[in-house]
């Protein structure tokens, strides 16, 4: 029985997390010359069938962006203000010029996020959870695209697990757990990190509040 428990634990932790960031046009020069200090994150456009995805995604954005060194406008307050202004539909918000949105809040730049995928695909014994996102920052004055990136994260319980009846049961358990409540949030966080932080790739440059780490 104990051995069976260990199998489950092992299985849970041998989950394969594969992430990939699509190569993209590096627009860092534009970003650096615009040098925004503040970023307005507008509600997320959700192209997946999971209706809760947009708000859940929105909750993950402030921290990585602020930690990158920007003033990030209060996400929930911004959402509510837009709703009060008759912009409850996020696709309407995304269709509005960045300069118009930015002027409402006094923001230097606007971050638009699209959810391309937010789904769990169930096979007989395994489940694949996928989160795919599209990011774009536009200038709050000129509407020019300052930066864009994509990130796709896939979570798949590993096919291994030692075989035998213990392994099989454990696998069924894991699939059942994932089916009951697929947890997209770790994938959303990883997508943010991959898309926003890859400075050498198309990540966003540091903002003005970034505390530079002291050299050792």
């Amino acid at each position, binding site marked *: 029985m*104990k*051995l069976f428990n*260990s*199998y489950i*634990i*092992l299985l849970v*932790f*041998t989950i394969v997390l594969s992430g990939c960031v699509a190569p993209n046009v590096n627009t860092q020069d534009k970003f650096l010359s615009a040098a925004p*200090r*503040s970023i307005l994150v507008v509600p997320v456009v959700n192209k997946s069938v999971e209706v*809760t995805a947009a*708000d*859940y995604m*929105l*909750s*993950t954005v*402030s*921290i990585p962006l*602020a*930690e990158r*060194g*920007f*003033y*990030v*406008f*209060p*996400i*929930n*307050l911004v959402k*509510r203000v837009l709703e009060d202004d008759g912009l409850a539909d996020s696709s309407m918000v995304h269709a509005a010029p960045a300069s118009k949105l930015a002027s409402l*809040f*006094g*923001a*230097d730049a606007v971050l638009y996020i699209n959810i391309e995928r937010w789904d769990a695909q169930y096979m007989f014994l395994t489940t694949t959870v996928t989160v795919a996102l599209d990011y774009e920052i536009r200038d709050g004055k000129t509407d020019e695209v300052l930066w864009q990136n994509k990130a796709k994260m896939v979570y798949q319980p590993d096919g291994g697990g030692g075989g035998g009846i213990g392994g099989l049961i454990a696998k069924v358990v894991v699939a059942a757990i994932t089916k009951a409540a697929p947890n997209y*949030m770790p994938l959303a*966080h990883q997508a943010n990190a991959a898309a926003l932080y890859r400075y050498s790739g198309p990540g966003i440059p540091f903002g003005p*509040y*970034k*505390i530079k780490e002291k050299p050792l």
Partner: protein
Amino acid sequence: MKSLAKKIAAFALLLPLCGCVAKTQYSWSNYDTKLYSHYKDPSQKKEFAQALKETLEEAESSNRVPPGIYAEYGFLMYEQGNSLQAIQYYQKESDKWPESRPFMAKMISTAQKRSKAQNTSTAPAVIPETSAKQVVTEQPEVTK
């Protein structure tokens, strides 16, 4: 054999922990999880306000208040009908983050307008005892 499996399991448990302790510039106290819970169950507004208050207290004690949190909390106070506390927190956001000033000025002006309207409409209602109770229950507790 059993102990080996245990050791491997223990090691596997430790691995993900290593990634979590990376120090952040601001003190967030799980702000993202709190906002997520709020979106999951928007009816729990008081709990969300309390959770944000804890984030703020923790962050103030280390002087690492993240951008936006004073304003978020101020808005929750506004929603609870507490315009004066809303203004106070909007002002804190504005003082700490110059980038927020135009927006906070708007939010403060909205809260001030409602505060004035409340004063004129509720002032007589405070005098009779029965309606005073109603007013009291509608107002959230003012701490500090």
